[in-house]
């Protein structure tokens, strides 16, 4: 993966997906060169509680649809877990089946 600001924030987010870090992510996004995203749900796609979100992630791609980083899909606020796709506003879905994406 290319060394960009986003990759660093992604690492931080995996360690601490706090609101403050997500806001940092959203702020860095417009200048990061990231254009596309793909949400990948784990656990056989089952989503029975917010906790299951921790097993899923979002792939981020540049304009050439090259994978740049993987970020969590959730935010942890105190003990509470919620989704975090709001912070990815501005991105477009890559719309590709799994096997196509390298």
């Amino acid at each position, binding site marked *: 993966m290319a060394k960009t600001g986003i990759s660093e924030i992604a690492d931080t987010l995996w360690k601490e997906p706090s609101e403050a870090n997500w806001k940092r992510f959203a702020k860095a996004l417009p200048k990061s060169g990231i254009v596309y995203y793909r949400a990948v749900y784990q656990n056989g796609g089952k989503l*029975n509680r917010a906790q299951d979100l921790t097993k899923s992630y979002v792939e981020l791609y540049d304009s050439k649809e090259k994978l740049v980083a993987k970020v969590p899909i959730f935010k942890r606020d105190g003990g509470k877990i919620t*989704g975090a796709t709001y912070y990815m*506003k*501005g991105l477009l*879905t890559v719309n590709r*089946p799994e096997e196509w994406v390298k």
Partner: protein
Amino acid sequence: MIEQDLKTLEEKSIYIIREAKLKFKNIAALWSMGKDSTTMLALARKAFLGKIPFPVIYIDNSIDFPETYAFREYLAKKWNFKVIVGHSEIKPDLVGSACCGKNKPETLKKIMKEYGFDALIVSIRRDEHGVRAKERYMSPRDKNFRWEYKNQPAELWDDYSSKMDTSGHIRVHPLLDWNELDVWRYIKQERIPINPLYFSRNGFRYRSLGCTHCTIALKSNARSVDDIIRELRTTKQEERSGRSMDKESEYAMLRLRSLGYM
């Protein structure tokens, strides 16, 4: 799909939206940011001289598409209407489709109670789903949001019933007569802004929008409203085939509706 007369559909929807606003004391509309509820807002603007005269409720389950969030902010600003955002929790429901099932109505119930809304505009269409064929233009829901689909009041001569116990509310369905193709033809005619997820990328598009978890892209090369109209004129696929919930159990839909989902 029969292409119905858009002017007739439009007049009827405008009549119903005005009727809802003038008949009830405190109404709101549900906005999923999909094509149907966005079309409904465009009709409301026509009915009320460019101004949407009621708040719009959006239930956010926190894993919606980023495009959807962006579209919400874009349109609310462009058309200048008030959005009430309700945050729903992810938890299992009756059919095991956690994200769009039981949790959304619970959030909606809370908002309806908090704001004291007595009617809610919902942009369902009769052709969309079997159960929805049984809906009326104005369908009462009791305080637990239950819908007694077997025992509904008659809607005689444009006199849409309002009878209910005071704790319930009325669901108003101005788009009931429209079909999927009519909606797209109207979007083209009126140049209604639309969520970009409907347009094809890499050979796939979304035909019916849920969230990033429950919505599956369908094979399609339609990149514009014109393309979509062309595609719908030939397709035999069901509109909601890209929504995982519908696949689980069709009967569950009926139960969910009678329990207050949508």
